[in-house]
């Protein structure tokens, strides 16, 4: 905790700033490589970006240009944030419920942001009472629960991983938690992927619902990258 007068900044926020700084430095460093005709880093960056973009396009073919930066940012941040727990002395920011709740809130807002932006407020809200107004409470409950589930799922997995690794290290001794650390890597990647995919599905469900109710939308209409 960093105490700055009456304000106390949590360790997760500080770590997040570190992650942001790291990502900004990597992006700045990669910019120079991207201007070169052909090199390994450019190819790697393009390939990873295309993989993410293709995943988004599979879910929201008409809006992938808008949605990709948000989902890709989620994936990149979560991968780094989840893996940060492997560094001795550091803790994953996603092991903090406030961080995952903030991300879940962002997803919640993003779903409505993209829906309203592309369909308009009225059309976006209409899907809560379609096909019948009776379903409105269920829709509202679903919105809340899925956001909560999103936050708690990530928090629970990462926090439990770190705690389990700590317990095994205390009980069994040095080098024994290595398999658990390897599991941490897999779990960190899987949880980042699941969070991003779920966010994408939520955004996509709002957009596709709107698509079925209204056809006068303005899709990206871009050609596919292979």
């Amino acid at each position, binding site marked *: 905790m960093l105490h700055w007068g009456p304000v106390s900044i949590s360790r997760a926020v500080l770590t997040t700033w570190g992650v942001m700084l790291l990502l900004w430095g990597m992006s700045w460093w990669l910019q120079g490589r*991207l201007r070169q005709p052909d090199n390994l880093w450019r190819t790697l960056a393009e390939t990873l*970006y295309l993989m993410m973009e293709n995943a988004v396009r599979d879910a929201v073919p008409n809006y992938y240009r808008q949605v990709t930066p948000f989902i890709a940012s989620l994936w990149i941040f979560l991968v780094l944030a989840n893996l940060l727990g492997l560094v001795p002395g550091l803790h994953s920011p996603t092991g903090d419920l406030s961080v995952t709740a903030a991300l879940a809130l962002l997803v919640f807002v993003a779903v409505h942001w993209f829906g309203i932006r592309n369909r308009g407020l009225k059309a976006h809200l209409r899907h809560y009472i379609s096909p019948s107004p009776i379903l409105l409470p269920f829709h509202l409950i679903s919105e809340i629960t899925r956001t909560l589930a999103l936050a708690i799922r990530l928090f629970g997995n990462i926090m439990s991983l770190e705690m389990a690794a700590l317990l095994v290290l205390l009980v069994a001794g040095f080098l024994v938690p290595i398999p658990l650390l390897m599991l941490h890597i897999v779990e960190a990647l899987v949880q980042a992927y699941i969070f991003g995919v779920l966010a994408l599905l939520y955004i996509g469900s709002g957009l596709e619902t709107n698509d079925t109710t209204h056809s006068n939308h303005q899709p990206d209409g871009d050609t596919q990258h292979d």
Partner: protein
Amino acid sequence: MELDPLTIILEIINFLVLLWILQRFLFKPIRNALARRQEQQAQALQEAESREQKAAELEQRLQTELTQWEQNAARRQQELQTQLQQEKAKILTRVQEAAAAEKTRLESLRQQDAAQLQQQLRQQASATAAQLTATMLRRLAGPELDHALARILLEDLRQLPATELQELKQVAASDHKPLVITVAHSANDGLKQTLEGGLNNLLGPSLQPQYRTDPDLISGLRIKIGSRLLHTNLADELKHFTTESADDAR
């Protein structure tokens, strides 16, 4: 496990800033790089298509030129073939004409050679016949045969036309040279008497013959009266026979 509103707010702000950073410094450059790559690929593809089209046009043009060239070549070959046939026919005609001329010439030469050979053979045969006849006649020759031939000569003189006999008389009378009688064998009295009697009756009484002997005459005699020569002997007859045979052969 506690929810900290400040942390939530800061994390929301952090993520929005991160989203801006990544969008500005990572995603946009990557999209630009991808766009450049796509543009390069499109240009390369367009260039490849252009080259392919040019190659196709070039191939078409070359194919057309090749077809024209083959047609020209076929036409020229046909023309050359025709010219060749014509030239061949001309040369063949010339060769045939030359061969015919050569054949004619050789045939002529062969005929000439054959004629010449035949003539030579005839001449040789005549000469051989004359030689054999002369050999045989030499064995038969003698004063009696000389006498008989003298009588034949006188008989022939008597049968000469009157004009010729008169000319002969004038030659004998005007010429101061003596009348020379060459006999194959030495002339005996009987022969001399027969000759002088006969000649005096025919040519005049003033003739004074001189007798000579020439065995080459084989048998018979030769009478020279001035520039005239009368002869009845086997040698001259054989010679005459041989000459006539040679003339006949020609």
